[in-house]
Every structure is written in C-alpha cells, then in structure tokens.
C-alpha cells in the first residue's frame, strides 16, 4: 500500500481527539541542518587538539565540552548532556557513558594526567633532582584541576570517585598517574622498589589532593609547601630497594591516606543517599574510618621506630576533643569537605616528629581545627 499524505490525513481524522496530537507528520524545522551539524563537529575537532589523530572520538569530544558545564550542573549526566548539545549531538548522548557521572570525573583525571605528562616532558628534567621532578609533576597534575578545586566542585568529584562502585576505577587512574610520574621522573626499576616507590607517591599524592581541597591560600602556595614537605619525608625511603617491610609500609601509608580520604569524602554522599542500607553502610564506613586512622598511626609509629599505639595515646592526651575513632575524624573531615574553612593552616605542625605519619596530618589537622 502506498501511503500518501491524503491517506494519512484520512486515518487521523478517524482518531479520537486526544490521539490527534498536534505533531505534524514531517517537519522541516524538526530535522537538523545536516550541513551545519557536520561542520560544527569538524570545527570542534579542528579547534581542539591539533596533534591528535584524524579519527575524532565523539566520546572524548563530548566529555571535553561537558567539563565547561560542570560549574552549572555539577558532575552529572546533565553536564554531559549539555556538552553534547553544544557540539550538536542529541541530549540523550550521555547514554553512551555507562558510568554516567563518574565518566566525567574520570575524564577530568585523565586529561589532568595527560597535561602533567606533557608539561613534564617540556621541562629540563636532567637539570632537576628526582624530588624536584616529582614535586613538579604532582603540582602540574593538581594545578590542571585547580579551577574545579577553587569552585568547590572537585571535592564532589573526589567523593564520587570514592564510592565503592567507582573506587576500583579511581585507583586504576591514580595508579596510571603515579606510574607515569615515576617513569618521567626517571625510575627504570624492575624490582620490588617499583611497588614501594609507587605506593609512597600514591600516599603523597592523595594527601596533597585532600589538603588542596580546603586550602585557601593564594595560588595554593600552602599546598605546594605541604607537597614539598611530604616528598622530603618519603624521599629517604624511596631511594632504597624495597624489602617486603618497606613495600608494606609504603602501601600501608598510601592506602590508609586513600581510605581515610575516601571515607571522609564519601560520607556526605552516603548520607544523602540514606535509605534502606544506611545503618549497615554507616557502621561499615565508621569502622573503615577508625581502622584507617589506627592503621595510619601504626604505620607512622613503625616508620618512626616507636612502639605502635604511641601516637594514638599521645594525641588523645593532647587534644581530648579529637578522638582516634573514625567518628571524630569523619565528622571533622566531613566539615572539611563540605565547608572549606579559612582558619590559619597549622596542620603540619600537628604531631611533630612523626615521619611518614605527617602525610596524614592533613585530615588530623583539619579535624583539630574544627574540634
């Protein structure tokens, strides 16, 4: 049967009024302007990065564009949709991304790592010491995301990344960042020190990133000072070829920083999603937080050669308001994530004399500020 406009109109006349939606059968206005559509994509591609392949991955383009909409929409599918529409794609394009909101966060992390790599490669690395290269790399990586940090949206991004369903992806991305940074800093090791170096740098990076979230100094100068001190702390350990104990300590400090950070950052999100599982999740996160605290202290004690448990008891004596339990740290750190304070930054003067434990000083100090 050949359909004609006349036949279709005849059929529609038989439909009840509610079914006769005002939608026209074919509308030139609804169809996109294909010439312009293609042109806008090509222009975008040309305008983006000239050294990239001729093959233009629409996913990358959409995510790049979506980063501009994070201020408005947050790290959500709405931002991805806005970015897609800017490029001329349909708003439903966010469906391409399985991980949804997290895809945007991960893309930001990847672009930051790429920026770090290209910045480092442009530097005179032979003239710098190993520590200086590491500091430059971490700084480059964090500076790339500084606009998001200043506006407060990076804290939400980190919290998103710390959620259990995304934690593995986040740690893979961090692993890539840390591996790339060590490679560019000149590490060509192929023994156990490969692991100890990356574990230590992971701890330094995680603690610096956390510190940066509530740093209000001019150009994040306090953060770079903190970074410098942390790298100085760990450079002593990093130079030795790792024994099993060194590797365990390095990973312990790295993981406990991450766990503590993840706990403190994810807690607001978990509370926002309070529902059927809130009780179990709360207690689980609470114990995770307290375990992370105690682990961190034990590792710091071990690194400084003291008996385990010394710093915990010492801190409880000095600052009774701040408990070694996860509740206190979490409450304080939650305040840190939610409302960046403009108090003076004295956090690294907290438990003086601790070796690698100082990298945990960020959340300890922040909690003390708010206690």
């Amino acid at each position, binding site marked *: 049967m050949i359909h004609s406009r006349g036949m279709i109109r005849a059929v529609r006349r038989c439909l009840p009024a509610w079914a006769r939606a005002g939608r026209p059968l074919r509308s030139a206005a609804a169809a996109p302007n294909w010439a312009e559509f293609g042109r806008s994509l090509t222009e975008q591609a040309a305008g983006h990065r000239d050294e990239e392949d001729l093959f233009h991955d629409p996913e990358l383009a959409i995510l790049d564009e979506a980063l501009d909409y994070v201020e408005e929409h947050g790290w959500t599918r709405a931002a991805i949709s806005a970015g897609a529409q800017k490029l001329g794609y349909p708003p439903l394009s966010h469906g391409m991304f399985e991980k949804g909101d997290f895809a945007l966060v991960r893309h930001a992390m990847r672009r930051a790592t790429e920026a770090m790599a290209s910045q480092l490669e442009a530097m005179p690395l032979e003239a710098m010491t190993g520590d200086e290269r590491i500091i430059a790399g971490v700084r480059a990586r964090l500076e790339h995301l500084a606009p998001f940090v200043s506006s407060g949206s990076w804290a939400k991004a980190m919290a998103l990344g710390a959620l259990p369903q995304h934690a593995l992806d986040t740690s893979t991305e961090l692993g890539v960042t840390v*591996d790339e940074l060590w490679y560019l800093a000149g590490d060509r090791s192929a023994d156990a020190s490969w692991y100890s170096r990356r574990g230590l740098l992971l701890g330094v990076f995680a603690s610096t990133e956390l510190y940066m979230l509530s740093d209000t100094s001019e150009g994040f100068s306090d953060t770079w000072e903190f970074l410098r001190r942390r790298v100085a702390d760990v450079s002593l350990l990093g130079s030795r070829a790792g024994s099993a104990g060194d590797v365990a300590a390095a990973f312990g400090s790295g993981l406990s920083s991450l766990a503590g950070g993840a706990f403190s950052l994810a807690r607001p999100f978990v509370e926002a999603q309070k529902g059927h599982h809130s009780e179990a999740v709360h207690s689980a996160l609470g114990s995770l937080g307290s375990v992370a605290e105690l682990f961190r202290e034990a590792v710091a004690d071990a690194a400084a050669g003291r008996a385990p448990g010394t710093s915990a008891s010492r801190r409880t004596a000095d600052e009774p308001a701040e408990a070694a339990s996860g509740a206190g740290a979490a409450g304080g750190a939650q305040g840190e994530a939610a409302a960046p304070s403009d108090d003076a930054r004295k956090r690294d003067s907290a438990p003086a004399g601790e070796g690698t434990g100082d990298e945990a000083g960020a959340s300890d100090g922040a909690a003390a500020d708010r206690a």
Partner: protein
Amino acid sequence: MCFRTPKALADSPDPSRKAKIDEIIRVDHAGETAAVRIYEGQMFVLGRNKETAETLEHMRMQEVEHLSDLDVLVADRRVRPSALLPVWEVAGFALGAVTAAMGKEAAMACTVAVEDVIGGHYNDQIRDLLARGWDEEELLALLKKNRDEELEHLETATELGAERAPLHAPLTQIIKTGCKAAIEVAKVI
C-alpha cells in the same frame, strides 16, 4: 588493586595486546630472577669443587644476561614486574641450596627439571606470539635466544649426571610441578 592493569599513557592502541605482552615479560622476568638465585644457591653449597663452580658460574652469568635484557624490557614496555619477586628470589635460592645439599647429581637433576619447564614455557610463548601474528621481532628474538641457552643448560646438566641422582624421578616431578605453578602465579601477580 590499583596496579591490576596499568596502562601507560604511551601508545597502547590495543589493551589486550598490551596485557598479553605484559604477562609474557612479567613471567619471564620473574623466571630469570629465580633462575639466577637457583644457581647462586647451588654455588653456595657446591662452590668448593673448581670444575663444578666454573660450570655453575658460566650458567649463572648467562641467566644474569637474560635478566638484564628483561629488566630493560620491563622498563621500556612499561610492564608491571611481578609483585612476588622477593618470594621468587628466596624460593629459588632455597631450591638451589637444598638440592645441592643432596649432592651434585641432585643439583643437576634440579637444573634439568627447571630448564625443561622453562624451555617448554619459552616455546609456548614463542608459538603464541607467532600464532597471533604480532610484529614483535625484538621480543621474539630474545625469547628464542633465551630458550636456546636454557636448553643448553639442560644438556650440560644431563651430561654432568642428573639421571644418577637419588630419588631422581620424584624429585624431578616435584620441581616441575612447582615451577609450573609458579609460572601460573607470576602471570597474574
């Protein structure tokens, strides 16, 4: 764990290819580390006899050469080395020392068992790479060279009396099984 499949920013258009190459290099690197330690363990016990010491030292030096070639590959191809390297080192030394303590023939039997498994393992890898048709000339050449030298060690050890070892059959079987298990573990961890 964050180091499960590290992808360097360096060109890696095909993640599964990188994963496979990483696995190959990781296992071989771990294997050569253990092999160096096995010979060191044997030299520790049997080092007093000049002739034996010379043969063992020659074989050890060849393994050290293999290991340094693989070290370069680990760094260049951005491969994550095996996390159990300290374990492989200790286990290798212990294996070498214990079998050497059972006598020179037992030490040679251990060498035969290990080199047999390693030779077969290298052959499997070469076959795998050729079957996939990837352009990996340098890696293939290295694998072939290593395999040839390992099989040389096997022949040397057989000539020096491996088959005369006490409990030759069970000893060989246990060591072969252990090596195969270690290879499977080193592929992942």
